[in-house]
């Protein structure tokens, strides 16, 4: 049986339970569908693809994203949708090159068989031009949508180079939340952590606390984000935050070394520390299971 990491999370009634094991893996391998008649469904989160990056941290950068697309396409049960939580491209000062990278990224992910794909910018995509090039090709940088009883909110905490959500977007968020029942399951998508994970490494959102304050009255809130190129799981009150692996290079654990330099490429274990995840929503989104996948499955 091929090895894959498994992490199951349950956010029920505002609490969160973490469990490790292979139970969820076995269920999927047996061919059970996540998106059945009960209303359960699953989606895939990919993050930090950094298309255009060239460097020693990933000598295979030209094909890593394509391989991940192939792995997603090979999932036995297709997800109902896919989200990319930012840093689609690696930053460049050149506006023409930025647009070229965004277009190339878009062309590559067009090969995904699942056609409902949601995008978000990261600071590498959007901070140097306040999201102008990104919006030309992908539209709004923050938005909300509903899927089978779960309310999804994509928050842009990168178009402002100072990592601020900003008053305008916070007002929009306040208005969006005001329409919801307090028990509505909410999944927030962001690029940067909304809480102060590691401010010394700029792993924070300057006004993230204001967004969390708005979310606090809601009983079932889970945040999935990127930016830090590794899994990390933390609670702020009853709100669970889960960061995703990257698809370009891994970064060290928060505060584990003086600088946030990429972890070196391991030629003996290519793509080590990289991957994507499935998020399975059960009980109308009140229970979420996360399954981690490598870039390439054995």
């Amino acid at each position, binding site marked *: 049986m091929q090895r894959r990491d498994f992490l199951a999370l349950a956010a029920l009634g505002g609490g969160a339970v973490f469990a490790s094991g292979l139970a969820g893996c076995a269920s999927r391998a047996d061919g059970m569908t996540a998106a059945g008649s009960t209303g359960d469904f699953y989606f895939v989160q990919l993050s930090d693809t950094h298309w255009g990056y060239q460097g020693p941290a990933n000598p295979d950068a030209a094909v890593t994203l394509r391989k991940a697309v192939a792995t997603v396409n090979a999932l036995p049960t297709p997800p109902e949708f896919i989200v990319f939580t930012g840093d689609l491209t*690696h*930053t*460049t*000062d050149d506006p023409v090159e930025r647009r070229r990278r965004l277009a190339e990224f878009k062309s590559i992910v067009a090969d995904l068989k699942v056609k409902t794909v949601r995008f978000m910018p990261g*600071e590498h995509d959007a*901070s*140097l031009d306040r999201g102008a090039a990104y919006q030309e090709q992908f539209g709004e940088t923050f938005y909300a949508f509903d899927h089978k009883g779960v309310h999804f909110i994509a928050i842009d905490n*990168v178009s402002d*180079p*100072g*990592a601020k959500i900003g008053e305008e977007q916070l007002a929009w968020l306040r208005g969006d939340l005001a329409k919801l029942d307090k028990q509505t399951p909410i999944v927030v998508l962001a690029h940067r952590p909304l*809480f*102060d*994970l590691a*401010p*010394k*490494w*700029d792993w*924070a959102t*300057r006004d993230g606390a204001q967004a969390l304050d708005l979310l606090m009255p809601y009983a079932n809130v889970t945040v999935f984000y990127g930016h830090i190129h590794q899994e990390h799981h*933390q609670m*702020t009150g009853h709100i669970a935050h889960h960061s995703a692996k990257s698809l370009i290079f891994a970064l060290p654990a928060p505060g584990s070394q003086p*600088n*946030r*330099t990429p972890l070196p490429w391991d030629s003996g274990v290519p793509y080590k520390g990289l991957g994507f995840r499935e998020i399975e929503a059960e009980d109308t989104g009140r229970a979420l299971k996360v399954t981690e996948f490598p870039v390439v499955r054995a």
Partner: protein
Amino acid sequence: MRTERTSRRRILKGVFAAAGAVAFERSGVAQSVAAPRTIEMIARRFVYEPNEIALKAGERVVIAIRSLDFVHGMNIPDLGMRLDLVPGRVTRLELQPKAAGTIDFVCDNFCGDGHEEMHGRFVVTA
């Protein structure tokens, strides 16, 4: 983590007491009996120059920072303060460390490919 950070910040605020106002835009450093030593600093993509500043405990200093090319940030999480370094201005940060220690600072305005390497620290000796 938040508890640890809050606790550390409380300790470090004791280490780095600000002498009068902490940060100033342009000029306007508070007049005082003994003028603090001024240390010039340049911020540019993707470095602070110098990026390591030696200080003596108890000495009042003013860090006078000029940004050359971007509104870089200077976030000093342990002190709970941050500054925007606007080109064309001199941004002044007045500090009076009271005890030995090391305080990190980091650019928190994304400034390009290399932003992640833009950081520095104050090293205070007794």
